[in-house]
């Protein structure tokens, strides 16, 4: 040992008053230094010493955080929320990689084959990604601990919202980055945002009634059907599809607001295993 913890710091440590980062240094050092442990024993009362050892034991036992958890904790997310999010399938690398690949391909197509005034393919696809991400982050189909989570004291709606916000922020963030890669379209390339919120909120609200598979499937199907109808109805090929016009954006905003209201009213339904019980 080339250094030892100062006796005053050891007294503070024993009283539980030593602050980070000195606390972390002392924890690490005490695990390896018998001399400092001896001094600590001399200056500590037994109760405080036991508490110190317990804290040290806990630090040594604490699992090493994965990449996602570490990132979240560094961003200020409480460690228990980070652990809940680490269990979300669609926040794992493989899922995110698939989403990024899809967006890159769509953006590449939009840039290689310029489409009239709006990047229609991108705008059609982008709202579906958050919808799918949220749908795949909760429910018995993809969450292996779903049944344990349902009967846990934490309200199912709270867990759903924690995961939804994380998935939504990730999905919207990736969509936003993809939008930046379409500078030629200006703000028109952002016309996916309100439909994305409307689809995700509607999917969640219907999940309370129809379950986590049927509800987003219906919403996604309805979105594609709407786009096909809009495509058939537009006057000229250069016109944007109706959902990407100002009026369409207004409708999307209204649908999103109504769906959020319905979701709040139905939140207790997420606290029960109601849709696929055997």
């Amino acid at each position: 040992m080339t250094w030892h913890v100062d006796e005053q710091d050891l007294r503070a440590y024993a009283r539980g008053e030593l602050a980070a980062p000195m606390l972390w240094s002392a924890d690490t050092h005490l695990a390896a230094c018998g001399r400092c442990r001896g001094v600590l024993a001399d200056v500590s009362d037994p109760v405080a010493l036991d508490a110190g050892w317990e804290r040290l034991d806990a630090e040594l036992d604490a699992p090493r955080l994965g990449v996602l958890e570490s990132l979240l904790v560094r961003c200020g997310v409480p460690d228990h929320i980070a652990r809940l999010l680490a269990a979300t399938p669609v926040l794992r690398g493989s899922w995110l990689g698939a989403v990024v690949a899809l967006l890159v391909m769509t953006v590449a197509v939009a840039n290689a084959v310029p489409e009239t005034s709006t990047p229609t393919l991108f705008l059609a696809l982008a709202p579906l990604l958050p919808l799918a991400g949220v749908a795949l982050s909760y429910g018995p189909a993809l969450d292996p601990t779903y049944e344990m989570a349902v009967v846990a004291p934490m309200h199912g709606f709270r867990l759903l919202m924690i995961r939804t916000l994380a998935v939504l922020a990730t999905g919207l963030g990736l969509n936003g980055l993809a939008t930046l890669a379409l500078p030629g379209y200006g703000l028109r390339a952002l016309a996916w945002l309100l439909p994305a919120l409307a689809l995700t909120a509607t999917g969640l609200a219907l999940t309370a009634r129809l379950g986590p598979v049927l509800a987003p499937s219906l919403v996604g199907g309805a979105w594609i059907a709407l786009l096909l109808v809009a495509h058939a109805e537009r006057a000229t090929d250069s016109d944007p599809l109706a959902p990407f016009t100002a009026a369409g954006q207004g409708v999307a905003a209204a649908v999103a607001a109504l769906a959020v209201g319905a979701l709040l009213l139905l939140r207790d339904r997420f606290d029960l295993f109601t849709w696929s019980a055997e």
Partner: protein
Amino acid sequence: MIPTVSASGLSLRYGGTRALDDVSLRLTPGVTGLLGPNGAGKTTLLRVLATAVPADRGAFTVLGHDPSTSRGRQEVRRALGYLPQSPGFHPDFTAFEFVDYVAILKELTDRTARHREVRRVLEEVDLGDVRGRRIKKLSGGMRQRVALAAALVGDPGFLVLDEPTVGLDPEQRMRFRELIAHAGEGRTVLLSTHQTEDVAMLCHRVLVMAAGTIRFDGTPAELTERAAGRVWSSTERAPGAKAGWRTGTGTFRNVGDPPPGADLLEPTLEDGYLLTLDGAGAEVAA
């Protein structure tokens, strides 16, 4: 004795199937076994009592809390440990991380206190040494113990175990029985199982379910007693037996109504169980 769980008239239909039909029961501290064939309604009953699924009719309380309200349901869940039939895991989690995850769902948000509790329950199921190992690298028996540890987080007063010994080899099953017996000291455990040996070795009381109803409620000795005088041996398979099979000695062991002068055998819990199911519309393996 004040019951931990008191239920009356629980009924539940799925589509056209009556999964639970007017089930009433009272559970007291100790291990209560729940026997029944596939489709008897065991898992449904456990899910209802675990507050995962609401019953269509009837009511129940757990430690005095009524789960029909949101607040009461949360109180029941705070007193509950639940090991589902097929516990799922996040395979990339270590045993410690998984139990830690469940502890967070059980509202243990203080990191130090939560990690202390995680260490305690992992030690209780004898997995302290492998707490840092990824779950996908653990054996089936160890995974079941991880799931049991997760159920034990928070020292619940009511523990619901849905067929926890399925798929375990005899040694693992025996080890798991020890853990269940230990878990049943001072708390109420409801153990669903297909294994009559589980009930014989662990339970102070047994319920037999068939077609959504409770067909028997008593002690294992009382269930065994149902087969007294109704088990006999013969050199040929007895045509009138409800069930009969050739044993290792070459003679047939028959369960049912014996012919006059039959060579009666000492009944087992399984014999009593088979005879209880007979007439309940359930198949009796021959």
